[in-house]
């Protein structure tokens, strides 16, 4: 059953198109990573799903309902981001107390325990917290709501590595105990690869790719070898990424489906096969330029 369905969503801010032609479905009880470069519309998409913003055209349904101005969707979904705000006069405990009343499935005990674990004083104020602490609190809030659709927009920004690791672990544990639909947008894809089942890759406001992580791992192949040999082999094929490693060595990433060549032959020419990590692949797929920053400096 698909919980989230998007069809042909377009979102314009004044004249600039933030999202276009977005069509995808997200199944129930899956953790999806929402990946993309800065400014590709990840936040906008999440805000549309949470009902914070209305799409310019297209249809969005969450639990078969349009999320914008829908109470049912609001009660069963939550968007966690670093712009979350709470009334200035509420301390963390007040916020948690109200969450109990608002969210039917709120787990107060979990929230209290996590707060204690992450050394957040319930008497302190949200606006006094540091960026990382704020995001930790927001994450706890999001997790404890147990909403069936939980959307995290860059939840781990500003957290230190130890906290990030704990957060991933907490998310995974709670997800296993109470499976639900979770979308996480993050720049730290390689850190959370083990959490994710699906990847939704956005590029310039469009869906570049929506696949399971396993599929993604097999999506591309990296070739490393003498430049001249690689050039010859990849002629006419779609190159996802290429990079001059040393003067006569080159690294190229191709789609796995195109690599129909004989492995043995390649090895003889000194070309090595290398797996491409999901994180790197996402980078390559969303990089409009072939080459990288080094090329800027090498003329």
């Amino acid at each position, binding site marked *: 059953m698909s919980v989230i369905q998007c069809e042909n969503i377009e979102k314009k801010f004044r004249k600039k198109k933030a999202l276009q032609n977005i069509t995808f479905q997200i199944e129930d009880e899956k953790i999806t990573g929402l990946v993309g470069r800065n400014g590709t519309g990840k936040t906008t998409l999440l805000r549309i799903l949470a009902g914070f913003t209305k799409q310019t055209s297209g249809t969005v349904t969450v639990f078969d309902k349009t999320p914008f101005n829908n109470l049912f969707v609001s009660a069963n979904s939550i968007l966690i981001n670093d712009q979350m705000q709470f009334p*200035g*006069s*509420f*301390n963390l405990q*007040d916020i948690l107390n109200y969450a109990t009343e608002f969210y039917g499935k709120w787990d107060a005990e979990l929230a209290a325990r996590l707060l204690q674990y992450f050394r957040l004083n319930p008497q302190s*104020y949200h606006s006094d917290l540091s960026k990382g602490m704020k995001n930790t609190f927001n994450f706890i809030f999001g997790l404890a709501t147990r909403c069936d659709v939980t959307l995290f927009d860059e939840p781990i920004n500003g957290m230190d590595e130890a906290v990030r690791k704990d957060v991933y672990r907490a998310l995974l544990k709670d997800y296993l105990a109470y499976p639900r639909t979770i979308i996480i947008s993050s720049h730290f894809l390689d850190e959370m690869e083990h959490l994710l089942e699906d990847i939704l890759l956005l590029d310039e406001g469009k869906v570049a790719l929506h696949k399971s992580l396993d599929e993604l791992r097999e999506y591309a192949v990296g070739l490393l070898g003498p430049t001249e040999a690689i050039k010859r082999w990849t002629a006419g094929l779609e190159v996802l990424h290429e990079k001059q490693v040393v003067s006569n060595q080159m690294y190229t990433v191709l789609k796995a489906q195109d690599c129909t060549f004989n492995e043995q032959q390649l090895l003889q020419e000194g070309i090595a096969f290398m797996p491409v990590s999901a994180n790197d692949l996402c980078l390559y797929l969303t990089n409009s330029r072939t080459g990288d920053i080094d090329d800027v400096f090498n003329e």
Partner: protein
Amino acid sequence: MTNFGILSILFLLLIIFIVVLFIKSMSKHMRLNQRPLKIFIAFYTTVLIIAPIIYLVLPKTEVTILTDKMQKKLSLENQMLYNALFENKTAEFDEKFLVNEWSREIKEKEIFLKMMNPEEGSQVGIIVQQSDALSNQITGKLYRKNYFVEEIHLRNFDSVNINIVDTLNEPIITWEDATTLVVKNPPNKKLSFVSVSDATDIIAFNNEDSRKNESTVVKIKEWEYAGPYYLLITVPKNIKVWSDEGLRIYK
């Protein structure tokens, strides 16, 4: 709206501006926690709820507002006193209107009456009565009639009349020398009245536009014979009475 009204509103706005600035700077440094906030609000609200009860039990000097009937009665009494003064029948009014009484032995055969400030209008009506007795005894009786403030207009209120007789100062009556009696108008008396109301003129539920425009006015009605006091001087017929202001002498 008068210029004064506009000024007071400007003044109000200034104060509000200062208060807003104060609050803003304060809220930066202080965070009002929920609990002290609630206690403060509860305290203030309790004080306000108790306030009317305290107000009710506090002793107040309330002024009786005269009804038309009461006013007529008082006016009639004044008239009767006035008549009695000239008919030598004041005894029956002594209890109610007599303020003080004195007598004095005079060795000379004449006395002078002197008003200290006649140009302001005398507040004391002097009546000289000649008695048949042959003696040196002069008696004086000071009467105070009902004297009331009429037409105190307060916004949203009808005009009200009150009897202020008990709060007036007495005229000063002294002997300058052996034969000169000086009567001085009573010293100025300041009277403050307060009127409190739950109604305001922002929301005035009345259709009479005429009344709305009237500002608060207090008028004092000067009664039939000028001034609230009568001084009745009884002199034996062998003593002559003189006055620069002129006198009416009754037998």
